[in-house]
């Protein structure tokens, strides 16, 4: 039978069934193949050498950092345009990335600095010839305007003024064109360690002042859509909801960055970010799940840079609530948790177990103070001592968004159940979680993040001072608060270390937070990308990066 005859012959029911069966087999086989095997990743990136493409879960639309400081991607974008006065030293790793060296600082926009013997005054001498993309020079007057703006807007900048005990704009004085001094109402031990935070990097005051109006004297509206600083990049274009494109600052004082364009692509789904990286259409992908990171580790054409960071996964326990106010109950929870299982199963071995309120990378961290591991009998015994031998009910409130959180709370729920604690799960939006925690409307919450300053007293001040606004557990310990406040003004390094250990010991014993994971920072990139140095706020500056 010729091919033509085959097509012109009338089809019988059997023919149709056979053809349908074949088609089904082909479709099913194709789908199965597609589902079971991923094509090997291309060995090279598809993007140009002078272009860096980064897949982000979203691209910030409000660029203001004064009130958007809680948004890490807002911080990340700001850091490409704004530089701080100084940075922590860095040390090169064998894989081409950098780690922190907390032994000292490298100058950036400041050439030198001096803290007075009484710890009340800090003087900065600025680098000369530093210009913004608009051609305006960084001077003491420009820096002074930035400090005035912190007080004027009463946003994140004001928080730092309070941390440093700078009472008013009058305490910021211009000495000469390139020298400025800051004076605090009491001695501070944080003068230098807060400076590497990009929050305090200056904007181009001349440009911002030109955009100010009588109703908006600090150009907040301009700042929502623009960032003009003295960093290596400037914004070239933005398409809302899709991408932001950066180009180099032509007047940049430092080494010219490799990339003529840095493109931030908004890719809301992590599965798509993963695919884009694997296919070489982007050079870096942010916020992949730990399961995806683990999968990438075995793929050719890509690599994952792992860093320790200050990022802790913590569950604040509301200490003002019934049952939970008893520290034996909180300790019982700490003894009930399967720490190893969490690290291996939830974080795929890529995170580390925390051993207290301080991240491991911070000076002053002491692993020996941590007693907890899973011991269900001890947990039951503590509950029994607290008069809760029959257990009790509570609620874990957590947010959507981070893929590991759901299995993590399920694992916690299961562990608690073994000692008689019936934990209900309450899943809310990220903003609802922040609000609930701020208002104290939770039993057990969930918090990701950490301190942006490796000085241990800064961390304690944020989370454990009895008056701190982000002391979510509302844990009030007068002795610890007193030690924290003394440490913030003390210039005696040894005394600060001793008291720091005492604070850690008390916090570990009192368990205001359940510490479950030190997630670290993991940057999945194409294999030709290197030079990453994550800054103290866990973000990176793309001018550091090299693409071969």
């Amino acid at each position, binding site marked *: 039978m010729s091919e033509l005859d085959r097509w012109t012959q009338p089809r019988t029911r059997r023919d149709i069934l056979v053809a349908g069966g074949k088609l089904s087999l082909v479709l099913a086989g194709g789908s199965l193949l597609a589902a079971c095997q*991923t094509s090997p990743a291309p060995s090279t990136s598809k993007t140009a050498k002078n272009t860096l493409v980064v897949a982000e879960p979203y691209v910030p639309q*409000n660029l203001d950092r004064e009130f958007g400081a809680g948004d890490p991607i807002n911080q990340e974008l700001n850091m490409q345009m704004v530089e701080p006065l100084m940075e922590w030293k860095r040390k090169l790793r064998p894989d081409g990335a950098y780690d922190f060296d907390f032994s000292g600082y490298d100058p950036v926009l400041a050439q030198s600095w001096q803290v007075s013997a009484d710890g009340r005054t800090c003087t900065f001498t600025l680098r000369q010839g530093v210009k913004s993309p608009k051609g305006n020079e960084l001077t003491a007057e420009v820096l002074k305007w930035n400090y005035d703006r912190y007080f004027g807007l*009463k946003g994140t900048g004001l928080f730092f003024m309070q941390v440093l005990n700078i009472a008013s704009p009058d305490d910021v004085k211009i000495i000469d064109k390139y020298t400025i001094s800051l004076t605090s109402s009491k001695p501070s031990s944080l003068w230098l360690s807060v400076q590497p935070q990009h929050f305090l990097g200056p904007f181009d005051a001349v440009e911002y002042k030109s955009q100010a109006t009588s109703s908006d004297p600090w150009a907040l509206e301009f700042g929502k859509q623009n960032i003009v600083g003295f960093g290596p990049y400037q914004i070239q274009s933005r398409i809302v*909801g899709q991408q932001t494109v950066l180009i180099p600052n032509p007047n940049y004082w430092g080494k010219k960055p490799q990339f003529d364009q840095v493109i931030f*692509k*908004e890719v809301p*789904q992590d599965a*798509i970010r993963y695919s884009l990286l694997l296919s070489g259409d982007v050079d870096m992908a942010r916020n992949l799940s730990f399961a995806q990171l683990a999968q990438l580790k075995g793929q050719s054409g890509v690599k994952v840079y792992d860093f320790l960071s200050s990022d802790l996964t913590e569950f604040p326990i509301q200490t003002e609530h019934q049952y939970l106010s008893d520290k034996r109950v909180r300790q019982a929870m700490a003894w009930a948790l399967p720490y190893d299982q969490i690290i291996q199963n939830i974080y795929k071995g890529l995170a580390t177990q925390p051993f207290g309120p301080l991240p491991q990378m911070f000076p002053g961290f002491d692993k020996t103070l941590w007693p907890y591991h899973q011991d269900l009998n001890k947990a039951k015994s503590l509950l029994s001592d607290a008069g809760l031998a029959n257990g009790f009910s509570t609620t874990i409130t957590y947010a*959507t968004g981070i893929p590991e959180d759901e299995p993590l709370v399920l694992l916690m729920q299961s562990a608690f159940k073994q000692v008689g604690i019936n934990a209900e799960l309450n899943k809310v*939006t990220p903003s609802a979680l922040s609000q609930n925690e701020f208002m104290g409307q939770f039993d057990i919450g969930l918090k990701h993040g950490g301190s942006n300053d490796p000085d241990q007293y800064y961390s304690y001040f944020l989370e454990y001072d009895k008056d701190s606004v982000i002391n979510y557990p509302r844990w009030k310990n007068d002795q610890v608060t007193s030690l924290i406040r003394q440490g913030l003004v003390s210039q005696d390094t040894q005394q600060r270390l001793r008291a720091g250990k005492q604070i850690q010991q008390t916090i570990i014993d009192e368990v205001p937070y359940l510490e479950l994971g030190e997630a670290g920072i993991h940057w999945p990139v194409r294999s030709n990308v290197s030079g990453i140095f994550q800054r103290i706020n866990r973000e990176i500056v793309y001018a550091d990066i090299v693409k071969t």
Partner: protein
Amino acid sequence: MIRYILGRVAILPVQVLAVLLFTFILSRLTKQSPAFYMAGPYATQETLARVESQLGLDKPIYVQFGVYVANVLRGNFGVSVITGRSTLADITDRLPATLELITISLVLAVAIGLPLGILTAFKSSRIAGGLTTAYGLLAGSFPDFVVGILAVFVFYTTLHWATAPVGRIDASVIPTKLTGSYFLDGILTGNLAAVQSSAAHLVLPVLTMLVVYTGGIIKIVRTSVRELRTSEMVFYAKACGFYERTRLWYVLRNALPPIVTITGVTYGVLIGAAVLVETVFGWGGVGQYSVQAIAFSDFPALQTFVIFATTFSLVVYIVVDILQVVINPRLRY
């Protein structure tokens, strides 16, 4: 007829207001406050109180609603918590992206669903019917975002057939903005690169929409045509000796009303369906905007999205009703 149209248009604002009131109350019942996002992570109680006062959140809910409606009537839809811009500007910037996606999806869904529905209605085989039913069931049971991710996995990650599933156009292509639809603007301005790039980016999201939403159209067309084929009207026409072609015309003519209805309803549904499809493909339309608005308790953005989505659906339904009158002489108002 004109009185009917005017009547429908006249009640449109009332319908939008009712939906808005419902959304307003629901969003406030969540007891979430956008002030927490706006004030930043280190805000004190005083700062929070100041931001809440600026947003009017310290007033009773009925006062808030009254102020909001008065502002909307003056064209002030509020400022987005996320973007810091007017929500009206945000929505109008992003609406063309969504309209491009859902309109092309609808046109193709009808272009595929109509002939397939008719074809399967005329095929008496069980296989055709079974396949149609199975497809209808599968399409209806798969969430669109799952189909989207599977499509990316198969056609982009595995087979390398599709372009990178992100955004609406390549970064290197700069389209001239006329309508806001890159594809259409590319055609209108003769920018071949824009047409090619935008078409390539449209393939997977449109395919996703087609897989999920063509099933309903096929099913309705098939059912309507089959019922009419075996109706007394067609038997009577046959008995009168009308040609088969004429009888077919009667069938299709009478099947039109439900087809127009399902097409209109699908168009109205697509603006909501686009929410998750846009999120999968980073489309940058109003759907993606609304998802972010929910996550950050951005009430002004959410409310403006609801106003636009509701108005869009209601206008589509009015057009459908008018078309029904035009194509069905038995309907008179």
